[in-house]
């Protein structure tokens, strides 16, 4: 199953879990699978219109992707990582 890596700022809905293996054939399905188990997670990553939140970045197998790649097919060993640029004074 693909892995979804969740940054600390977004671990509120997942109650501190930073890595989840989920059922999903695409990036979008994997994010949806996390949301199904942890309500409130998806809104941190995607806007209501389905585009990426500006403060979230997506990486598939270490390569940055945009929202045009949300429906890209994933293999069972693939990794989706979300990066959140949240800190500062």
């Amino acid at each position, binding site marked *: 199953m693909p892995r979804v890596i969740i940054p*600390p*700022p977004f671990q509120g809905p997942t*109650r501190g879990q930073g890595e989840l293996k989920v059922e999903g054939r695409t990036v979008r399905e994997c994010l949806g699978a996390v949301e199904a188990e942890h309500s409130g997670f998806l809104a*941190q990553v995607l806007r209501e219109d389905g585009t990426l939140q500006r403060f979230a970045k997506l990486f598939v197998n270490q390569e940055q992707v945009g929202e045009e790649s949300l429906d890209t097919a994933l293999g069972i060993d693939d990794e989706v990582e979300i990066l959140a*640029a949240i*800190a*500062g*004074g």
Partner: protein
Amino acid sequence: MSSGPSGDKLIRVDMTRQSVEVVDFPDGWRLLGGRALSARILLAECDPACDPLGPENILVMAPGVLSGTAAPTSGRISIGGKSPLTGGIKEANAGGQPGQHLMKLGMRGVVVTGAAPDPERRYALEISADGVRVVPADEYKGMWNYALCEALHQRYPESASFISCGPAGELGLRGASVACTDQDNRYPARHAARGGLGAVMGKKGLKYVMIDPGRAPVREPADRKGFAALCKGYTKSYLGGRQMFKRGTSAVVPAANALHTFPYKNRTSGRSPDVETLDGARIIESFATRGGRMHNCMTGCIVKCSNVVHDAQGRYKTSALEFETLTLLGSNCAIASWEDVADLDRLCDEVGLDTIETGAAIAIYMDAGRMAWGDAEGAKKLVAEIAEGGELGRAIGNGAVATGKYTGHHRVPESRGQAIPAWDPRPLKATGITYCTSAMGADHTAGLIVNPGLPLDRMAWESQKAQIVNAVCDSSGFCQFLQPSLDDIRGFYAALYGIPVSRDAIHDLGWQCLSDEWEFNDGAGFTEADDKLADCMHEDAIGDPPTVFDVPREIIQAAKRRMPAREDLFSSKSTG
């Protein structure tokens, strides 16, 4: 291999006699700089029971260990003393040029004692390769910081940088900041803001410090090849990586709002309806039509997180309009326009005020019904009024707690007398533990943990870890936004002096800094009972689901008991 930089000095200034002594810097202190050096000096030499605005207090200006070298983004300076705001030890950290300039001259720090016998007189400290001296500076009395720096540019060489206090500092106001000039045009836009150290400077009669490095070279490390390789490798890795702060901290606004840590109307909510108009993306968009840009505040910085903001006519308005300022002077006061916040930022820099403390104070004033929410013009008049020294100006200028007392208002979000910053302890409970336990009081740069889902049983460690990492970072000269780890920092230290620096040693350095600070505060009369937040943080719920700060006492106190080092202590990046 040489032994690295040697022959360093410490400048001791006695403002009572307006005399200067330049003494040898103890060789045993060579890994002490910035915050750790300030803490060591204050613990050893400052009476923790002294009046913070009296001659017994000591003001320390200490660059980081790596300042003045070729290490990237390493020129930060710490300003330290007993805080008139918290009544405890305080370190405030700033960028700009002065840190590097001092170190290039081999000056590891400036220790200012005493006070001018005539409180109406003003003096300056001049530091250059020709020597160090105290000179009269009465003609600059009461000057706002930008006008002061413009006048000083006429007097001193172009290579000089300046540290100054504004009228707020001269009035001894507890929200007063210490200003440092930045790299571009050398505006006084980098502030060691928190804790009222500008008042300590002002009450000593010290209006400004001039540092002219002339042609002093970059500090040479013992292991030149190793140090150069570290600089090159770190820079390449950073610039090739994810560069979190490329658009500045103001771009964090929508993310913070999503996490319910963009306080609105005196923290009665964690989300603001004005998130779009306060978003730093609006500032970046303005560059296309008005000019302005991102820039680095100090030579050698590779992060370039600082913005230069222009007005609608294309003229310079302010620099370093940060997330905290957009929050405390914007959202927290229900002021909706980033442009109004830019005006307020400029005003605070001019008068010499902490934007966090001032924003918190104005929000309390509004919450008390004394001014309408969102009254930007009223807020600007208030800040200008602070410089006049009237009753209302003094209340606001003395910060959140003073404004709470002045208005009789009940909701005063503070810890240890210092206003809570934008990062709210209710959704970010581990950060709340930092606010409770750090000797700095409510200071996110002391150890920020942005993880709303962190389980309770990990919170004490995460706070302690963040506090240690940030203490070492603030001692090193590195900017927190470069995000070095303890392993990174000890690697640079080792190459600088040609000595091994073990994980145990760097852990000890960080822990000793925290311990020195706690010991000072013990002497100032603080006890465990003071390791807490204001009642409103326990009573007023925000977020979804609504939450208060409800961390049990034993978890909070655990953050102050040294835990065995774990692997993540050395690999975790500084976060502030």
